[in-house]
């Protein structure tokens, strides 16, 4: 195992993040604050409570998931796409490292960045609403698993993408709509019966529900199903990455 190489990739990627620390830090703080102003204050004043929880607090897990999923996907895809785009990938391919080590470096860094942003949002949210976390260990587990699995998804997209447009395609047109429609800002039980059934086809529902359960002990779907969903998603991503590495798809000619 070439730990030194994993470390080199990880810190090289993290350095990119720290170079734009202000942007990385301020952006989620401002957007979270805006969500609270719009959803929490304007809409929340009409909704009051959802499942016995104040609306402001209710949307916190969804808000965190929204940012974590989009950030993990973007960071994961950009990390590997950029060397492909500017040609520095030759260094990775000619160095004495295997694909797993490359993956560990890039996905590790992308997941760390997403985790950092998730925690920043959590702290910011705590300023606006009274927040209690019922199952902190489960919360961290869900958060870390989401960061890793969506960074893996991003990594796959980064290898798949042939241009910047394709790179933005999935985060914008797939991930963001699925998160918005995945119960981030509402409970599934608030939907009309037919939509309650349709929404169960959205994988993000299970992740948001599980994550919200770790905060409040309430869930739209059983927690075991949520855990199964996030684990399955991670495994599917790992299988796809393994196939990419085995075949050298869009990496090696």
């Amino acid at each position, binding site marked *: 195992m*070439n*730990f*030194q*190489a994993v*470390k*080199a*990739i990880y810190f*090289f990627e993290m*350095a990119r993040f720290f*170079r734009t620390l202000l942007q990385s830090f301020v952006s989620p703080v401002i957007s979270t604050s805006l969500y609270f102003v719009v959803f929490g204050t304007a809409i929340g004043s009409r909704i009051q409570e959802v499942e016995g929880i104040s609306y402001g607090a209710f949307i916190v897990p969804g808000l965190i998931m929204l940012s974590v999923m989009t950030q993990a996907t973007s960071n994961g895809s950009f990390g590997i796409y*950029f060397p492909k785009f*500017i*040609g*520095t990938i*030759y*260094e*990775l*391919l*000619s*160095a*004495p*490292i295997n694909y797993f080590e490359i993956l560990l470096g890039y996905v590790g860094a992308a997941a760390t960045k997403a985790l950092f942003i998730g925690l920043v949002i959590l702290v910011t949210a705590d300023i606006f609403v009274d927040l209690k976390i019922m199952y902190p260990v489960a919360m961290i587990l869900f958060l870390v698993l989401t960061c890793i699995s969506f960074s893996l998804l991003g990594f796959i997209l980064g290898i798949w993408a042939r241009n910047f447009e394709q790179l933005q395609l999935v985060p914008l047109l797939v991930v963001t709509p699925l998160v918005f429609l995945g119960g981030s800002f509402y409970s599934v039980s608030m939907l009309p019966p037919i939509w309650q059934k349709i929404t169960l086809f959205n994988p993000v529902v299970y992740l948001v529900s599980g994550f919200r359960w770790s905060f409040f002990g309430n869930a739209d779907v059983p927690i075991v199903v949520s855990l199964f969903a996030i684990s399955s998603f991670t495994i599917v991503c790992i299988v796809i990455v393994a196939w990419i590495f085995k075949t*050298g798809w869009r990496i*090696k*000619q």
Partner: protein
Amino acid sequence: MLLEVNELRKTYATGFEALKGISLKVNNGEILALLGPNGAGKTSLISTICGITNPSSGSVSIDGYDISKNFRDARKLVGLVPQDITLEPFEKVLNTVNFSRGLFGKKKDDALTEKVLTKLSLWEKRDSRIMELSGGMKRRVLIAKALIHEPRLLFLDEPTASVDVELRQSMWNVVADLKRDGVTIILTTHYIEEAEAIADRVGIINKGELVLMEEKASLMQKFGQKILKIELQRRLNKLPEELSKKNVKLSGDGLSLTYIYDTKQKKTGITKLLSDLSRSGINLRDIQTDQSSLEEIFVNLVKENME
């Protein structure tokens, strides 16, 4: 033997056969120049040896390590300077060089980094961002990145492509320094004078095949034509008939003769020519010979190969 390539073939997904069974051996400490026109397969050969592309068949070993089975041991020995300037524009010189060392599994070594950057005249620029550097400096950063893990075999893919004459000369000096340090170098180029100036051996690749591999000196001797130029004591108005039959030409001013001969031939005809001149009563002032350049040899070989 540091590098051994056996029957290496590479066919891309498009069906294009870039390497058609290339075999070659490179000894420790030598400089091998691979010459060939654009699209000849030079970069494909380097990319396949370095692990950037997968070979279709054949084998490559570096210091006895197979590049597929023992890829870690093999790659540790190799440094690669790519043809295009591929660097992260926002990174600092020092960071990007240290990153390369890390990829090769080595811890940061400040003394070595300073030594390598100083040798390449980059130490003063260590905290500059890549985008602030000139083209020549960027190319030197690529070399620093390739050298920072102390490779024994260095690939330079067209190191002086689109650089000015001054920089080319300084690049040749860097290569000469590396050779003195015991680094084995394989460089690709389509500048003949580059091979002529720095290589020990020359390989010529055309259409995915290694057309020839020779010591530079023997290649020039083997394939080179020589021109014998004879300056005369007195102006000659007309060449004697027996001389004009022998590929001898009289200059416009009548003061010199040129004779083109092939060094490959056992008999060059020089002795006979000189005795004929003497018999004709032509007195000589001076004699000199010129060897044909690698460029002429190269053009001839590629032409033959195409026919």
